[in-house]
C-alpha cells in the first residue's frame, strides 16, 4: 500500500476558500475601491491575524515591567522619583498606561476588525457547506493524501452497498449518488468548523463584555472599623472610580456594619512564611435600600475569596489593619478627643503609620508616629514590629502643636502638615517621644494634658464593585472553551470509495472469482495522523461486509 503523505508536495486538504495568504493578491493598477478591498483582504487574512496576535503578546509585556498607573499609582510616583530622566520619556510613549495606550488599543481593535472580517465570510461558507452535499468523488483517488486499493471477490453493487452502510454507521453524511454510480462520498466533522466559529465569536464577545464592564461599571474603596456602620452612596467612599457611562445616582444605597474581623497570622513556620496571614474573615450586618423601603437587616460572614453580594454589587474584604482607640484630655481632665484612629500598615509585620489630630486643644495638637503590634527594639532603627499580630502592641508618637490646617488647606487624615507647627520638646530640650501600651495614660510635658491608649481594634478595607460585564464575560469564556474543544478535538474528514468491476484483469487464481476493484481514500482538514488507520479500518470492514475475500492488495503489487 502506498499512502504517501510524506511526499514533497504539501498534501491536499479540505480547506475553505478563506484568505490564508494574501501576499499574492493585488494587481498592479488598483483604483480606490481596489485598494480598499486589498487592505480589507490583507487585514482579514490569517497571516495578519497571526502577526497581530504576536504583536499583542509583545505589547502586553512592558506593562509587567513598568509600574502601571491603573494598578499601582504609588509605585509609578516612586519610579519617577528614582528615574527622573528616564521616566518622562517612558511616560510619553505610554509605558505607565500600557493597557489604556493608543498603540495597545490599536492592536486589539485591528485584531477585532480582523476577527469580524474573518468570522462573517466563514460563517456564510459554513452555513452553505452544512446544507450542501458532500462533494463528488474525485476522478483520481490516487492523488489524495491517504488511499488504498484492493481487488475483492464480490459483486460491485454489494461492495457499494456495504461501503454506504459502513460510512453511514460511522455517521458520515453521504452524497446522494445517481443510480448506478459506483462511488460513495461522505463527510464528517462539521462541528470542527462550528467550534472554530463559536470560539472566534466568543473571543469577540469576551472583549465586548470587558469593554462594557469598563464603561458601565464602578468601584469604591472604603475603610470600616470594627463596630462601625457605613452607608453607601456616591460620597460614602474613600475613593470612587466611575466608568465613563455611569450615573452616580445609580449607586445603590445600603448600610453595612462591620461587626467583627478575624485575622490570624502564621506563628509556627519559620523563614519567609513566618508572619504570613492565615485567616482573614469578617462578619457584617447589611440592610439594603435604606433610602427607600429598607429591607430587614441580615448578618453574613464574608472573607477573602468569599465576597458579599448586595444590591447588584459585590463587597470584597481586601485589606486590614489596626485602629488604636485613643483618648486625649486637657490639663483639667476634659476629653478633647476620643476615637479609633486608622493606622496604615507599612510592611508584613504591620508596622503602621498614622496621625492623631486634636483640633480641640489650644493650641491644636498633632500626634504622628507608628503603631507596632509586636514591639521590638532594633539597634539601628529603634522601635519596630516583629510580628503582625497583637503580641505586645504599642504606639510610638512624636507630638506637634500649632496650626493643624494652615490656611484652611484640606489634608489627608493620614499625614500631618507640620509647616505651621512646632515639635513639643521635653524640659531638657529633646523632642518628646511617647511610647504607650494599651491601658497606659501618659502626661504630656508642659501641662498639655494627657493621652491614653484605651484599646486596639481592627479595621477592614472593603471594595465595593459593580461590573455588568462580568457575567457575559464568563458566559462567553465558557463558549470559547467549548468551541476550542470542538475545533481542536473534532476531526473533519472526507472519505471516498470507488468500486470498479475489474473486467480487464486476468484472473490470477483462475478460479472464476468476481474481481472487483475497490479504492478507499481519505481527505483530512489539517493535521490528521489517524486518517490512515481510518481508511484501513473502513476498507477492511467493507471487504468483510460485502462478503468478499481480498484477492490482491493492489498497492503491494
Amino acid at each position, binding site marked *: 500500500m*502506498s*499512502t*504517501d*503523505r*510524506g*511526499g*514533497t508536495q504539501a498534501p491536499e486538504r479540505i480547506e475553505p476558500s478563506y484568505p*490564508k*495568504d494574501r*501576499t499574492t493578491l493585488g494587481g498592479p493598477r488598483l483604483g480606490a475601491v481596489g485598494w480598499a478591498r486589498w487592505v480589507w483582504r490583507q487585514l482579514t487574512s*490569517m*497571516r495578519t*491575524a*497571526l502577526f497581530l*496576535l*504576536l504583536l499583542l*503578546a509583545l505589547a*502586553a509585556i512592558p*506593562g*509587567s515591567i513598568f509600574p502601571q498607573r*491603573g*494598578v499601582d499609582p504609588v*509605585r509609578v510616583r516612586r519610579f519617577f522619583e528614582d528615574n527622573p530622566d528616564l521616566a518622562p520619556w517612558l511616560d510619553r510613549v505610554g509605558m505607565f498606561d500600557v*493597557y489604556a495606550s493608543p498603540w495597545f488599543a490599536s492592536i486589539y481593535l485591528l485584531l477585532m476588525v480582523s476577527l469580524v472580517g474573518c468570522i462573517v465570510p466563514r460563517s456564510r461558507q459554513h452555513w452553505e457547506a452544512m446544507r450542501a452535499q458532500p462533494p463528488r468523488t474525485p476522478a483520481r483517488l490516487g492523488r489524495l493524501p*491517504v488511499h488504498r486499493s484492493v481487488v475483492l471477490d464480490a459483486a460491485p453493487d454489494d461492495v457499494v452497498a456495504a461501503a454506504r452502510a459502513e460510512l453511514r454507521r460511522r455517521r458520515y453524511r453521504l452524497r446522494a449518488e445517481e443510480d448506478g454510480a459506483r462511488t460513495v462520498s461522505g463527510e464528517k466533522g462539521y462541528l470542527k468548523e462550528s467550534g472554530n466559529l463559536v470560539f472566534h465569536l466568543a473571543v469577540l464577545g469576551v472583549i465586548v463584555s*470587558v469593554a462594557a464592564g469598563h464603561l458601565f461599571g464602578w*468601584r469604591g474603596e472604603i475603610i470600616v472599623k470594627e463596630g462601625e456602620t457605613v452607608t453607601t452612596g456616591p460620597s460614602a467612599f474613600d475613593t470612587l472610580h466611575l466608568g465613563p457611562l455611569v450615573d452616580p445616582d445609580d449607586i445603590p444605597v445600603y448600610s453595612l456594619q462591620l461587626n467583627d474581623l478575624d485575622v490570624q497570622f*502564621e506563628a*509556627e*513556620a519559620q*523563614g*519567609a*512564611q513566618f508572619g*504570613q*496571614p*492565615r*485567616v482573614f474573615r469578617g462578619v457584617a450586618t447589611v440592610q439594603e435600600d435604606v433610602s427607600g423601603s429598607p429591607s430587614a437587616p441580615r448578618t453574613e460572614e464574608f*472573607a*477573602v*475569596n*468569599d*465576597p458579599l453580594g448586595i444590591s447588584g454589587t*459585590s463587597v*470584597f474584604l*481586601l485589606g486590614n489593619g489596626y485602629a488604636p482607640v485613643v483618648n486625649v484630655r486637657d490639663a483639667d481632665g476634659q476629653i478633647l478627643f476620643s476615637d479609633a484612629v486608622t493606622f496604615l500598615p507599612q510592611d508584613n509585620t504591620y508596622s503602621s503609620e498614622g496621625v492623631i489630630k486634636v483640633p480641640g486643644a489650644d493650641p491644636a495638637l498633632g500626634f504622628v508616629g507608628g503603631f507596632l503590634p509586636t514591639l521590638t527594639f532594633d539597634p539601628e532603627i529603634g522601635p519596630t514590629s516583629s510580628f503582625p499580630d497583637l503580641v505586645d502592641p504599642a504606639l510610638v508618637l512624636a507630638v506637634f502643636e500649632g496650626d493643624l490646617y494652615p490656611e484652611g488647606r484640606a489634608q489627608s487624615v493620614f499625614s500631618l502638615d507640620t509647616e505651621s507647627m512646632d515639635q513639643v520638646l521635653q524640659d531638657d530640650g529633646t523632642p518628646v517621644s511617647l511610647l504607650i501600651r494599651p491601658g497606659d495614660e501618659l502626661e504630656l510635658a508642659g501641662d498639655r494634658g494627657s493621652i491614653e491608649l484605651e484599646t486596639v481594634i481592627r479595621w477592614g478595607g472593603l*471594595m465595593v464593585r459593580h*461590573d455588568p460585564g*462580568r457575567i457575559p*464575560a*464568563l458566559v462567553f*469564556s465558557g463558549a470559547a*472553551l467549548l468551541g*476550542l*474543544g470542538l475545533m*481542536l478535538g473534532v476531526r473533519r474528514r472526507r472519505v471516498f470509495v470507488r468500486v470498479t468491476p475489474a473486467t480487464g484483469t486476468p484472473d490470477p487464481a483462475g478460479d472464476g472469482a468476481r474481481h472487483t476493484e475497490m479504492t478507499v481514500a481519505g481527505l483530512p482538514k*489539517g*493535521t490528521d*495522523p489517524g486518517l*490512515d488507520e481510518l481508511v*484501513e479500518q473502513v476498507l477492511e470492514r467493507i471487504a468483510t461486509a460485502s462478503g468478499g475475500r481480498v484477492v490482491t492488495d493492489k498497492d503491494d503489487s
Partner: protein
Amino acid sequence: MTNTTYAVASDYFIWAAIIVLAVAMVAFSVHLAVTGSVRQPRALRADARTPVTVGAPGGDADDGAPAVPGRAPTPSRRWGVVGLQLTWLATLAVVAGTALRGLSVSRWPLGNMYEFTLFTVSFVLVVYSAWSLRQDRLWLGAFVVLPAVVFLGAAKLSWYTEASQLMPALDSIWLVIHVTVATLSVALFTLGAALATAYLVKDGAERKGDVTGWLAALPAGRRLEQMTYGLHIVAFPLWTFTLIAGAIWAEQAWGRYWGWDPKETWTFVIWAVYAAYLHARATTGWSTRRSTWVALAGFAAIIINYTVVNLLMTGLHSYSGVSS
C-alpha cells in the same frame, strides 16, 4: 498544623528522584547513541528510498522502534529500557514526594513555587511514563528527563520553601482547580517543547541530508512535528481554562477578574503566543519550522513567567514563598 516527619520524608523522595533521573538521563543518552550507530546504515538506505519508508503510516519503523527484521542488526534496547525503568522509579518518587508534602500540611500542595514545580514535574513524568507504556518512546526519554531534572534541581536549590499553611488569598477551591490545571498544561507544554526541539534538530539534519549518529535514532521529522502539534492542541485548551479559572478566582479574591497584574499579563502573553503558533501552523506560507519556533517562544514565555515574574516582579501574585 505541619507534620514534620512527612515534610522531611517528602524532601528525601525529591532528592532521590533527582539522583535517579540523572542516572536515567545518562542511560537514555547512551540508548540514543547506541541505537543511532546501529541504525545509521539502514537509515541511509531508507533515505535513498524516500518517501516510501519515511511516509509510511502506522509507523512503527517511523516511531523509532527497531523493526524490519533481517535488514539490519536490531540495536540493543537495554540502555533505553534501563533509562525507562529508572524514570518510572523516579516518577513514583516525585509523586510520593509531592503527596507527602501535601499530607504534611493537610492541604493541596500548590501553595508556592516549590510545590508548583513538584506538581509540574510529577505531571511531566506521569504523562511520559503512561505514554511509554502504550508506545515505544525510549528515544524521547532524554528530552523529557532533562527538563524534569533541571526543574527539580532548581526547585530544590533556589525555590525551596518550608512546608506551611496557606495565606488566605490562596485558600480557595479555585487554587485546586486553577493551579492544578495550570501545572498539567505546563507539563504538556514542556513535553511539547521537548518534541519541538527534537523536531527542529532532526528536521535540520534531514534538510542537509545528514541524519547521522543519535539523530538517526529519532523518528522522522514529520512524525515529530505531528506529535508536537498533537500535544499543543491538548495543552492549549487547558491553558485557556487556566486563564478563565484564574480570572474567576481573581474576581473572588481581589474584586476584579482582570487587572493586568504581571502574572495575569504573562498568562495572557503565553496564551496569545500559543494561539499564534496554532494559527501559524494553519497559515499557508508559514513553514512548519517557523511555526515551531513560535511554539518554543511560547515555552520561553512560560519559563519567564515561572522565574522572572515570580521572583522579580511585584504584584498581587507575590506568593512564590521565596524570601528575597
